[in-house]
């Protein structure tokens, strides 16, 4: 019975196995990025960047059809351009980062919509552009896995400056000049993982598996390594449970995965042992010397 509900879908259907593999790869790359976004108070930047990437991917689609690499590449370029220009403007003028990012992503979005409409077909581009997690072919799975691998390697390299900049940017500036390059590399990773999210979850929910697990982790650990582990674990659990939910009910897979993550989040808000609401009402015994 339990076997039928939880395991049989994956043994019987290859597309379910592939979806699970995709979800796990996505979780491994996206969740740590999400934790850093949260710690840097950039949680909403992911959404803005998602809009910035879309036109680039659309241009890639228009130039070379439904070619995964062209679309990924176009998206990366558009994302990088917006991230770089926004960073440049906010560092050289008085405009704050959020405002300049908003300006550039809207610019990019408007440009993209214009380009798409010049081509002027009736096809709903959003549907053509980005797949869902049930459609993992070899190519898509490979792209997601490669992106996740790159993410983890680069994160390992820029880990120290990134962490220090999260807690004390001024201190980092006095001891090292790694802050700016690390920040840029990090933005690049954000873009890469958003593209990953596009392939698996579609444009609207691409950010979901990055931010929600990070927010969940915040309620269970104060330690950054602990947060990373919890975030990755909860992302993987959401992916698995979401797929099972989508298999047993008729909820589309992408939303199902994010809904499971959202449930975990609500549970964490209530019962998390770090600043969870219930925990605040009934605090544990104070440690006494």
């Amino acid at each position: 019975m339990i076997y039928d509900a939880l395991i049989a879908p994956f043994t019987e259907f290859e597309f379910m196995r592939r979806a699970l593999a995709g979800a796990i790869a996505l979780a491994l790359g996206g969740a740590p990025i999400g934790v850093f976004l949260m710690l840097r108070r950039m949680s909403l930047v992911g959404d803005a960047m998602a809009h910035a990437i879309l036109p680039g991917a659309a241009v890639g689609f228009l130039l070379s059809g439904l070619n995964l690499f062209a679309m990924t590449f176009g998206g990366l370029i558009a994302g990088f351009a917006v991230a770089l220009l926004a960073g440049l403007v906010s560092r050289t003028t008085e405009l704050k980062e959020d405002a300049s990012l908003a300006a550039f992503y809207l610019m990019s979005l408007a440009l993209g919509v214009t380009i798409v409409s010049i081509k002027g077909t009736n096809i709903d581009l959003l549907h053509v552009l980005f797949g869902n997690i049930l459609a993992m072919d070899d190519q898509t799975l490979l792209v997601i896995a490669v992106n996740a691998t790159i993410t983890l390697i680069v994160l390992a390299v820029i880990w120290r400056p990134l962490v220090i900049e999260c807690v004390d940017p001024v201190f980092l500036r006095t001891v090292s000049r790694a802050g700016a390059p690390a920040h840029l590399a990090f933005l690049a990773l954000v873009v890469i993982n958003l593209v990953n999210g596009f392939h698996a979850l579609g444009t609207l929910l691409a950010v979901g598996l990055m931010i929600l697990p990070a927010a969940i982790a915040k309620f269970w650990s104060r330690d950054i390594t602990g947060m990373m582990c919890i975030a990755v674990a909860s992302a993987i659990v959401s992916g698995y449970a979401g797929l099972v939910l989508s298999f047993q009910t008729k909820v589309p897979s992408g939303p199902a995965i994010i809904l499971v993550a959202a449930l975990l989040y609500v549970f964490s808000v209530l019962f998390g042992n770090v600043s969870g609401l219930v925990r605040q009402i009934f605090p544990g015994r104070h440690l006494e010397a």
Partner: protein
Amino acid sequence: MKSMRQTCGVLLGALAATLIANIPLKAHDKIDVVASFSILGDVARNVGGERAIITTLVGANSDVHVYTPAPSDAKKIADAKLVLVNGLGLEGWLERLVQSSGSKAPIVVASNGIAARRLGSHADPHAWQSVANAKIYVANIRDALMAADPPAATAYRANADAYLAKLDALGAEVRAAIASIPEARRKVISSHNAFGYFADAYGIAFIAPQGVSTESEASARDIAAIITQIRSAKIPAVFLENVSDPRLMRRISAETGARIGGTLYSDSLTGENGDAPTYIDMVRHNIKALTGALAD
């Protein structure tokens, strides 16, 4: 003063003369006909020949079901002598458009006289998918053109006869192609609901995938249901274009061994350089796609 009045009179007379000269000239010239969508437009063009200028409101590659008319469409209708529609509920938007354009042109329903299939609670509008029905379209369009432009009646009759002969040949071609497919293999899974008339006329079963809404994103359960269905009914080919993601299609195919059929054109023709620039090309293309996917 007198000379002024004279000049005016001369001018008016000249104007009237040009008007009078122009009107019959235009009537003897070509007539403007508006057809609602590309397939109907192509059929009408074959009947109208040199004598009628056919404009289509919904052009090639566009979906007639969800079309939003533009102001230029109202203008086309206002200028037209005749408006051709498919009927059977296909062009829900058209009636108001004709009214608002203030056109006096008669609206002729090309599918008149066709026994309509039901599609749920509505009539199935895709009658043109059977060549026999297309011949009824031709007859209706011919009669409408003859009524709208009596001087050219013989030309329309000749055009229609020539086109009907071509359609007869096409119908025979389709039957021969279907006959070449082994009977047990004459079934496909397709979420197209446009091939009801085709299925009835030629005996290829279009099995709807279970529980899949083409409007929304497919759930894992939907995909699993399709795969199980294909495996158990041993369906040799799938035509599921409106499963939004082609990768999803390839996944289904890889897991069932069913062939992925090519594109089936249902509601609109393609542009000049596409696979189906005319009605006859469209039917040929569809039948080729079907035989290609279903052959042993």
